């Protein structure tokens, strides 16, 4: 108490949750790549949320007389081989891509976190068994895995989500496991054990919040892979149903008529490239902003 009254301690503003996220956003925006990523991702999210209102036409409305029209004032990106408005299809396709990506990510995280925690904190035998399974899955070529699943279950959005989940869960669970393994040897977890804390308390109050940061960074970097995977499967006709607008379907349709017009392929490809770039930049900027090692260097 003495030292408090003698001289005022330096005012240290502790990072609360709000100020922390504001600080992270500020840090991301301060790098050019981070800013580009942030803008692209914001644009994509904006389109995803408002796609039906932004789309000038019904993306499913077939108009044979307008088929394969070039860009015009009425159809900014022209139309496809069935006369559907390409701009509308691209906009609504963004929503398809994002809903597949985010639902797949959410399911992957929901499955990977408990699996990783169990593997990392549970008995060693269980850990070895789970690592064996994860490794077996990761060793399968992704496209083979996708094809096999589609053959078993038939094409459709659900199948695409399942393929992505099967692809993502092993690597996410491994990350959670390795984080858990190193954290559980740290003193603050030992201190919990010494205080006779229950396993749920250790896992969910102390381990999980410390594991989730790196996991979210990995997930953000993975979104571009997932989008490409979804588009790829759809392009091969193994993904979302052909009539539903998706970037992969637009690409696939455009590929068939590429001799007539390159516009459909470009219209399907550019948003895919943009989204890949945007999420990758954002993920990397997020990693730099959250990486404790870099932060420590700045403090020193």
């Amino acid at each position, binding site marked *: 108490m*003495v*030292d408090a009254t*003698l*001289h005022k301690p*330096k005012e240290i503003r502790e990072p609360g949750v709000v100020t922390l996220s504001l600080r992270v956003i500020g840090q991301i925006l301060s790098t050019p790549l981070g800013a580009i990523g942030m803008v692209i991702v914001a644009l994509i999210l904006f389109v995803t949320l408002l796609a039906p209102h932004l789309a000038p036409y019904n993306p499913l409305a077939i108009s044979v007389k307008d088929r394969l029209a070039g860009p015009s004032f009425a159809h900014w990106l022209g139309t496809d081989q069935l006369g559907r408005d390409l701009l509308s299809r691209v906009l609504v396709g963004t929503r398809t891509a994002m809903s597949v990506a985010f639902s797949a990510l959410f399911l992957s995280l929901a499955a990977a976190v408990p699996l990783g925690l169990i593997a990392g904190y549970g008995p060693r035998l269980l850990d070895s068994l789970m690592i064996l399974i994860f490794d077996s899955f990761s060793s399968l070529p992704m496209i083979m895995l996708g094809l096999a699943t589609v053959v078993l279950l038939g094409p459709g959005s659900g199948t695409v989500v399942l393929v992505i989940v099967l692809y993502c869960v092993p690597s996410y669970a491994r990350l959670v496991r390795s984080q858990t393994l190193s954290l559980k040897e740290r003193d603050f977890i030992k201190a919990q054990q010494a205080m006779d804390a229950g396993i749920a308390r250790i896992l969910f109050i102390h381990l999980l919040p410390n594991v989730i940061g790196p996991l979210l960074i990995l997930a953000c970097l993975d979104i571009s892979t997932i989008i490409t995977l979804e588009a790829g499967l759809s392009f091969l006709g193994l993904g979302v149903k052909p009539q539903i607008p998706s970037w992969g379907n637009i690409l696939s349709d455009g590929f068939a008529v590429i001799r007539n017009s390159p516009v459909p392929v470009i219209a399907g490809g550019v948003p895919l490239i943009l989204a890949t770039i945007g999420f990758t930049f954002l993920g990397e900027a997020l990693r730099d902003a959250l990486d404790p090692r870099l932060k420590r260097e700045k403090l020193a």
Partner: protein
Amino acid sequence: MSDQPLVLDIEDLTIRYGGVISAVDNVNLSIRPGEVMGVIGESGSGKSTLAHSILGLLPKSAHIEAARFRLSGRDVNAMDDSERAALRGPLAAMIFQNPMTAFSPIHRLGQQLSDLLWRDGQMSRAEKRERIITMLRRTGIADPAAKLDAYPFQFSGGMLQRVAISAALLMQPALLIADEPTTALDVTTEAQILHLMRELRDQSGVAILMISHHLGVIAELCDRVAVMYAGQIVEEGPVEAIFAAPAHPYTQALLACEPALIRERQGRLPVIAGEVARPGGPGCRFAPRCSVAEELCRQASPPVRPAAAEGQRYRCVRDLA
């Protein structure tokens, strides 16, 4: 004492980080050949910053100003980075707190030690090997020839600190800077290392700058000692005088807190209340924690004045002499 130039001669050294905060402030320090100078201070006293500045090991953000900064008569102040780097070795060498991190883990010790002899290009490999073995034996390594093929992890901490001392002395420096060299060691090993350092000083005449927070280590080894507080030297003098009759209130309080100097088991142990003040502002830096501080202490910067013993000086508004 002799005509030889001072091994280290620093006048009015100030080191700032980010322009404002001075980690080292207005420091004068000189070391004669063969002298063991101790710098004692608690965390935040700037003792390590001072030691690192001598070898130019501070980060780029450090801004160094000095009226005089000489190593064995050579003006370090005027040198650029590469010239300063060339001084590491012949003029001054350093040993660190943790010997485990002072060596590369993937190379054999013999290789790492002979790399230090790169300056002596004309020396043959066999000669270098001979010199390394002699040096290792002098620092108390048994069977040194066999140890040349070993990797650092095969040594204990105490043994590695001996090897680190050999490595530093191989370059025949005029000044050996030791930054808390025994803090990471066991107390029985610490006693051996301190003994070794004194022995090497007596044999080779190398001067030593000993940085420590441990009063016992300073008393055991040093000829003179400088007491640092918040970036300033608050008292300096012969080690016997400082321990027998400390003049500065901080030195007095520090000695009073040392458990090994407390005779009786009394009810409560002494402490210095408060924390190290952030440097800056007028007045004595120790004033907020000083038990005899007056109003004047908080306003004016205290002068350096001589104390009773010869060569003992302290920085305080009170006149004891």
